[in-house]
């Protein structure tokens, strides 16, 4: 089985004077399903194309199994890539598309027939071998593109926004298929996406990129629970961010002066933040909500607020609550028969100190 590791060491790339990737340092383990997550223009596709050999970094090293492959032309890298638009050749049948790489490798006719047949079986398209790509649906084209890439047994599999051209239902189905296939083949796989849900549900680990800078690397839960900075907190899941300043840390309390809200006395976390400007981050579903008169438990920090708007989303309702001069988002699980807070309602919001994160970046 082809299981290669991939390592980026201080990789930088710029187009003219515009930096696109800045000092990327990253290690992907053999057999790992790894996601590059970021908004458009973050450099994630550039990084993927750089691994494939279509972009060339100006400094740094790109190692596959410890060997620097910078400067090796794409066709000698043996790194398979599935393109966002699938890039199936319209003048070839499905079979010829899949056999393309084997022809380049001068495989024997028998081996070719066996391998192409096997991979088409694997993706469930054996009966479509004689068709042209234009005669297939989007999902089938996606499978052909995948089959064409894995049949050459690449050292690495790269997927560029593999699900973005599919409609929502198909996307969820293909997501699972991709994951199963990757497990089965054990291929080290890197895929690019701007969809955090896609990354969280499929990848073993992921890297979040923004403005060409690697923001954080980790598992889905790791990034969600312990974001390093404001960008990651906001991009992976939804977050409330209270800007302000840590003014004092004592033996068991911490004073956070929130802008537009005033000082909050909070429990001291195990690793307290430094004194100075910071943001307090927490997830909407971690904020409990009570009518103003009702007492809350003492384990939480309670803030008085006014409901500004309410959205019913099925599993939960999302409220926008004004507290002092800031607006906080609170998600409350929904059950039939349980009423909703109306806009204008006087409420109290409870923050769980264990879930609060202090971000100084």
């Amino acid at each position: 089985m082809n299981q290669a590791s991939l390592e980026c060491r201080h990789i930088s790339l710029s187009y003219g004077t515009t930096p696109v990737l800045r000092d990327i340092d990253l290690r992907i383990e053999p057999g790992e399903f790894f996601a590059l997550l970021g908004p458009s223009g973050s450099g994630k596709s550039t990084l993927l194309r750089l691994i494939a050999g279509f972009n060339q970094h100006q400094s740094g090293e790109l190692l596959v199994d410890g060997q620097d492959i910078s400067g090796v032309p794409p066709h000698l890298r043996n790194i398979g890539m599935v393109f966002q638009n699938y890039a199936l050749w319209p003048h070839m049948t499905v079979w010829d598309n899949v056999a393309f790489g084997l022809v380049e490798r001068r495989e024997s006719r028998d081996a070719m027939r066996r391998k192409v047949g096997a991979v088409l079986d694997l993706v469930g398209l054996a009966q479509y071998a004689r068709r042209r790509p234009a005669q297939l649906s989007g999902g089938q084209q996606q499978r052909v593109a995948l089959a064409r890439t894995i049949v050459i047994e690449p050292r690495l599999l790269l997927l560029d926004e593999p699900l973005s051209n599919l409609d929502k239902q198909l996307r969820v189905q293909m997501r699972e298929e991709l994951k199963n296939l990757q497990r089965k083949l054990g291929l080290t796989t890197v895929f690019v996406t701007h969809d955090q849900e896609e990354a969280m549900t499929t990848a073993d680990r992921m890297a979040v990129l923004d403005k060409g800078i690697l923001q954080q690397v980790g598992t889905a839960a790791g990034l969600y629970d312990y974001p390093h900075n404001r960008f990651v907190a906001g991009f992976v899941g939804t977050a409330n961010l209270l800007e302000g300043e840590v003014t004092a840390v004592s033996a068991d309390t911490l004073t956070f002066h929130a802008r537009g809200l005033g000082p909050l006395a909070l429990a001291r976390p195990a690793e307290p933040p430094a004194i100075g400007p910071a943001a307090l981050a927490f997830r909407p579903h971690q904020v409990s909500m009570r009518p103003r008169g009702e007492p809350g438990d003492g384990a939480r920090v309670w803030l008085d607020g006014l409901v500004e708007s309410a959205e019913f989303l099925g599993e939960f309702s999302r409220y926008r609550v004004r507290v002092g001069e800031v607006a906080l988002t609170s998600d409350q699980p929904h059950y039939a028969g349980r009423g909703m807070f109306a806009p204008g309602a006087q409420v109290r919001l409870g923050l769980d100190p264990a879930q609060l994160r202090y971000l100084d970046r």
Partner: protein
Amino acid sequence: MPATTLQTGARARSPRTLASPGPLIAFGLILAFLLCFLVLPVGTVIYTAFVTETGAPTLGHFGNFFGQLVFRESFFNSLWVALASTFFASVIAVPLAYLTVRFEFRGALLIQTLGVLPLIMPPFVGAVALQLIFGRSGSVNLLLDDWLGFTVPVMDGLVGVTFVESIHYFPFILLNLVAAMRNIDGAMEESALNLGARGLRLFRRVIFPLAMPGYLAGAALVFVKVFDDLGTPLVMGVSNMLAPQAYLRITSVGVDDPLGYVISVIMIGFSILALWLAARVMKGRDYATLQKGGNALQKRRLGRWESLLAYGWILLVLAVVLAPHAGILLMSFAKVWSFSVLPDAYTLEHYATVFSDAGGMIGNTLLYCLLAAGLDVVIGTAIAYLILRTRLPARQWLDWLASAALAIPGLVLAIGYLRLFKGVQLPGSDRLVVQTWVLIMLAYAVRRLPYALRSCMAALQQVHVSLEEAAQSLGASRLSTMRRVMVPLMAGGILAGFVTSFITAAVELSATLVLVSTESQAPMSLGIYLYMQSIAGRGPGAALGVLAVAVVGLGTYFSHRFVERSRAAVQPSSRA
């Protein structure tokens, strides 16, 4: 090799396109070709027009030119004929374009046919045929005189030239305009309707401005073509225009006569001016608004009177456009045809004459044009690849240089060749280069390169880069990618470019007239012209013309079929 020096430092990283020498070599070769056979010859012509015999710079030749009545007259005649032809070509083409795009009716197919029919007949052949139909003693005037007692002198002098040129060149406007209007998104019209614009106001305020770039591109081309045309005035016996004057100076006074060069410079100047004006007006107005998945302009049915008007106009244009074809066909079978509506007797002997005498000419045409068109698509594909797929600095120059050939009249290029290669011997023999057919072929190739280049660029643009990258990531080298992916996908476009180059080169007369040095080198176009010079030769000339039209027409038809088929195979069908 400069490319390898870029890689000498072990850590040096350059874009992959610079790292391999292939593109650089191709760039160098193409540049050298264009310099030798386009820039230098034209440069020589311009230089000669501005220096005295001793090489001192002077404007005296221009003073001399404008000092002579015959040249002043020729200059204004050419200008007026070109402007008037552009105007009349527009009058014919604009309604036809509007009808095709706007209305749902069967005439659309007729209009499409109208669009290519004139182009497949060289204008100087058409001129002879039109004399027989519309001339002073042609069929139409004989009938008019018989029935109504008057004649229309539509084929005389400058009016005649304008008439022939308008009929021949209006398809350039028609095709460009139709393409531009087809690219207008129906939503543009719908939102205008939604905001209250209707009918003619809608046309004037929205549709026409959006189609303007297409119209201008066509109109500029017509102007340039007419201004530079040599064959038509010569055949019609009109010599007081610029191109015939230049030709007469060079052939009668000699290749050293400065006035021929002055005329050449003026012709280049006006061609460039017209194309530049059109490009300037169109700058930043690429109005292809049709969105992916958008609809074209809505078509509606014609009312009864509208239908009558539309069909009337189409049939009238069709009759006039078909006149030269009918005329040439009749002439090729006519035993005697003068002062009568139709020939008095028919014969096949002209074709026999042609096949026994002119076999060499047909062979020459095939030889020159196949080579020229082949050269064009090879260079065109290479330039397209360099421009669209590499980051070579200055790669745009190739496009500009190659496209500049559009503004160079064939006559001027040929004069430049004669001047530049005067006395140069073919390597390894004592034959002079100017006495071989190589220059004829190269003149064809250079003049037709812009068409081939546009086709190849369009073909490559349709091939998404990722199709190429996918091949590379699966292990295909650059060459293998070219062979297995790029060329098959571009085949339709390349073939279209080849055929366009071939058929337009086959009817090229102006460069041919100047460059052919012995009769055995003459291609069909020159053969037709020479036959047509004598009354007795008109029959065989017409027969040869019919053959040329048939070849060109069949070529166009089959390439069209092939391109449509390969496009259907390549483009995803909507029913996916």
